[in-house]
């Protein structure tokens, strides 16, 4: 009678290697890019928000803080860049939450792939969103008169630094995305974290104009280090120890939140 396939003959293993994990994450990132290609309207926020934020805050605060708009620009453009790109990373968590509610995530869970791949892939694809937001912020800045003294290399390094940190921070919002019940609540919790982090920093105003107790917080806020590093790179082409602190902070966030997120994701039923 039949000689059917009863016992499978393929090679079976219970672990996914690091190389396979990276490959699978890249495939998931490719899926994210396909989705962006199919629904380009999800890029509205990263195209419109940098234009509105940059123009609006420059002209609101410029005169009050630096005397005139053009002397505020070198101070403010790197700052608003950080603000914009980090805000964009919140959307990563919101979209992940929406995506996970769909049946396709059941299939990802039933495939013999690394558990982290669907998450890492989604976050990786969002790098394109940060890159768009960064490019537009710099272009708008230059259109209203900003001339980065750090030159092209300085601007490029700023962009890479800010994108890398935003990607790391997006793990926090991805974590909220995995534990929250609805996309709206992800947005809610995320902004509660985001607003103190970005507004209680040196993005908008010089720290020495703040009361001492607030300075204490602003000076340890990792966002302040990132902003200082971004300013130095854009305006001088070189940077100090702040770059290291910003990157170390980012790494710490990934080391804490990536495992937490994967665990929460695996526990979801």
């Amino acid at each position, binding site marked *: 009678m039949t000689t059917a396939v*009863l016992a499978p003959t393929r090679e079976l293993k219970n672990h996914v290697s690091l190389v396979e994990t990276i490959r699978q994450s890249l495939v998931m990132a490719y899926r994210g890019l396909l989705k962006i290609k199919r629904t380009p309207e999800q890029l509205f926020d990263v195209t419109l928000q940098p234009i509105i934020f940059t123009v609006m805050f420059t002209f609101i605060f410029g005169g009050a803080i630096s005397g005139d708009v053009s002397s505020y620009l070198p101070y403010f453009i790197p700052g608003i860049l950080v603000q914009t790109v980090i805000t964009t990373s919140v959307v990563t968590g919101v979209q992940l939450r929406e995506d996970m509610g*769909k049946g396709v995530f059941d299939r990802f869970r039933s495939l013999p792939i690394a558990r982290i791949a669907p998450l890492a892939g989604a976050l990786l694809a969002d790098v394109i969103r940060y890159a768009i937001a960064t490019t537009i912020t710099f272009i708008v800045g230059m259109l209203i008169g900003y001339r980065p003294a750090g030159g092209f290399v300085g601007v490029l390094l700023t962009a890479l630094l800010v994108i890398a940190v935003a990607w790391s921070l997006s793990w926090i919002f991805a974590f909220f995305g995995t534990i929250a019940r609805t996309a709206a609540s992800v947005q809610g919790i995320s902004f509660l974290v985001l607003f103190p982090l970005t507004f209680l920093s040196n993005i908008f105003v010089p720290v020495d104009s703040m009361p001492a107790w607030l300075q204490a917080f602003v000076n340890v806020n990792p966002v302040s280090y990132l902003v200082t590093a971004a300013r130095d790179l854009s305006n001088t082409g070189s940077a100090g120890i702040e770059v290291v602190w910003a990157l170390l902070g980012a790494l710490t966030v990934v080391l804490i939140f990536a495992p937490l997120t994967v665990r929460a994701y695996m526990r979801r039923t």
Partner: protein
Amino acid sequence: MTTSTLAVEATGLVKTFGDQRAVDGIDLQVTAGTVYGVLGPNGAGKTTVIRMLATLLKLDGGSARIFGHDVVKEPQIVRQLIGVTGQYASVDETLSATENLVVFARLLGYSGSAARKKSGELLEEFGLTEAARKPLKNFSGGMRRRLDLAASLLASPPLIFLDEPTTGLDPRTRLQMWDTVRRLVAEGSTVVLTTQYLDEADQLADRIAVIDLGKVVAEGTADELKASVGSSSLHVTLKDVADLDRAAAALSRVLGWTPVVSGARLTAPLADADRVADFLIDLRGADIHLTEFSVSKPSLDEVFLALTGHGVETDEITEEQKEVAA
């Protein structure tokens, strides 16, 4: 003959949601190379069982092995042996059919060109070539289901779980799905399918487990299940619907089964044909008149009724609404 390798061996499966025991001590044994039907009404725990066996849901009790590999200890091995097609299509709405399959194939380790080739073959096999480039938003429920099944077959898994594969499909598409299942088994795969359609289990499954309220209430081949209920069943149609309750009461008193009622028609399994006369005399005595009377071989419907104590609840309308809304 083949040796009887077990594709699925589950013992004492338990899953609780809050204080509700959705799955309450289920044992299953599925021989490799066969179709196994898990039959039950909505909410019986069918999907929960499948999700536990497919490593999608934690076990709250019991154990399960897929081709000898424990679903808890060796989940990644189990995932290499199974394909899962869920009740609601687990494919990406925004992407096209080809893009969906290519992404899944690449995740499974196919190279770029092999992934495209394999996807093309499956799309052709499932009659989706024409729509391959369109986003799934424009797909009908049946097309989505077919794509979903195609995605489950990318890795040619030896065991395929189909969770209500034909719920909400039109009759023609349902027959196509049945053919596909038969072909898969002919090629050597093992299929575990859940269904709330008795004829589907009857048509496809080598063995059937009837489950209700999280428990297996009967297990066997379709013939064994039918035989366990009695050799025939009784149908009577009343002249006056107003007599329904009294007739039903008489029937359950004399024959021992609560009948299935549809309109003015009562149906019940008939274990002992001699009792029919008593029932008819009862009806005469109560002045209840009949327009029709027949005795026939039992269908799985009657088996189901006898085993679970209630009829088959279909929710086709809500299923279809979900399809439309999706």
